[in-house]
């Protein structure tokens, strides 16, 4: 299964992940 997040954020929002990375609940995905 998959979860798709689509969200509006300030244009300087930055992801702190990379494709293929394993993540867990509560792990930082990105920040402004």
């Amino acid at each position: 299964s998959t979860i798709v997040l689509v969200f509006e954020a300030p244009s300087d929002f930055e992801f702190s992940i990379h494709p293929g990375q394993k993540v867990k609940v509560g792990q930082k995905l990105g920040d402004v």
Partner: protein
Amino acid sequence: IVDAWTQTPTKWYPLPLAVGALLLVAIQYRKKVKRARQEVELNEDGLEVIKLKGPWHVHVIGALPLRNMSRLWGYVNSFELPVWFRPYGIRLYAYAFGCNLDEIEPSDLREYPSLGAFFYRKLRSGVRPMENAILVSPADGTILHFGTVQGSRVEQVKGITYSLDALLGIERPGSPSSILPHNRDMSIVDDHEFAIVNGIEYSLEQLIGSSVPSTPGSETPSQPSASSSRTILENHSLPSDDHLPKRVGDQTDASVGSDRNAEETLAHDTSVALQMGAKSQTENRRRSITSSKHVRPGNSLFFSVIYLAPGDYHRFHSPTAWVVEKRRHFVGELFSVSPWMAKRLENLFVLNERVALLGRWKHGFFGMVPVGATNVGSIKINFDQDLRTNIRGRRPPPGAYTEAVYSAASPILRGQPLTFGEEMGGFCLG
């Protein structure tokens, strides 16, 4: 046979190879032009016609009875296992799919009556601390893709995109939407989205947990400004702060089982408290319709896709503090959503069964879309008991959805308030 083989004369002709080669080049060129122009077929509404596109094996998979297979898989996994066998069977499953048995709750494997129950296991509280960021992962899994939405097209993988409207559905005036039970007339918040309770002003974020972690007690509710023309509510007390998500040094455990009573109390009080701030209903109602179209200046639309492998923990949590205003359930196919499939099947996420939860957070529009797959066709939402997925029966055309509005959950916030890390639901087998 020997005579025929030896006597038959062999005649050699020069084959026009060049013609064949030119034909191949022409076919390749046509394919490339078609792909480059992203030829999108539009229907009478001007919406993209979503259909199966991809290499031949995708069409073979598409011809399979995926939904029946999914329901059969779920049925088989719902068989009750003998108590003595459970530890062995579940350990075998855990070994095969790489499940971490040290962090499950309950830890005694005999307490899981079936493999389906083990698949929908909980985690011990404390095993998933919340990091200090405005957006955290809603689930355990692998990052499939992420980026910025360009011109309402979302990139599935490099080179393949799908339509955001097709994923989330578009606002259709008069579309059938059921308001969930205990329906009360919708009341809308005014611009500042804050409440005055017993003479004290609470910001919206204080009510549902700020999306930026802060240590408890630092949010001193400001005294109402003299000019505030809002009615002061009498004897409505918000629950004490200890219902808000605690952030001790920015570490907050994912509340694996959300505290429904406190939530309802909070929601009810905020709904009454904020009702007084309503401006004209129509003006706010128009603003309140969540749509990814109206992005505020200086903002952009982003997306992130997380793939949950069969051995991962399959409950999902709130990735930020937000309010879910509505949900759209798209009855679709149940293709596998593995990275292998995502690279080959275009429109995978808009072909599959999914539940689009639409709402807003402190920066504007926020949407979260759990997408089902062959082995996990059922999607559960804790605050939406009416939702049924992967059900038998005639399938509506791709793109059709049923909508439910959560305004009654907390009319003041116009939806279901969710705090950081709160459990929202999960995926079940079958």
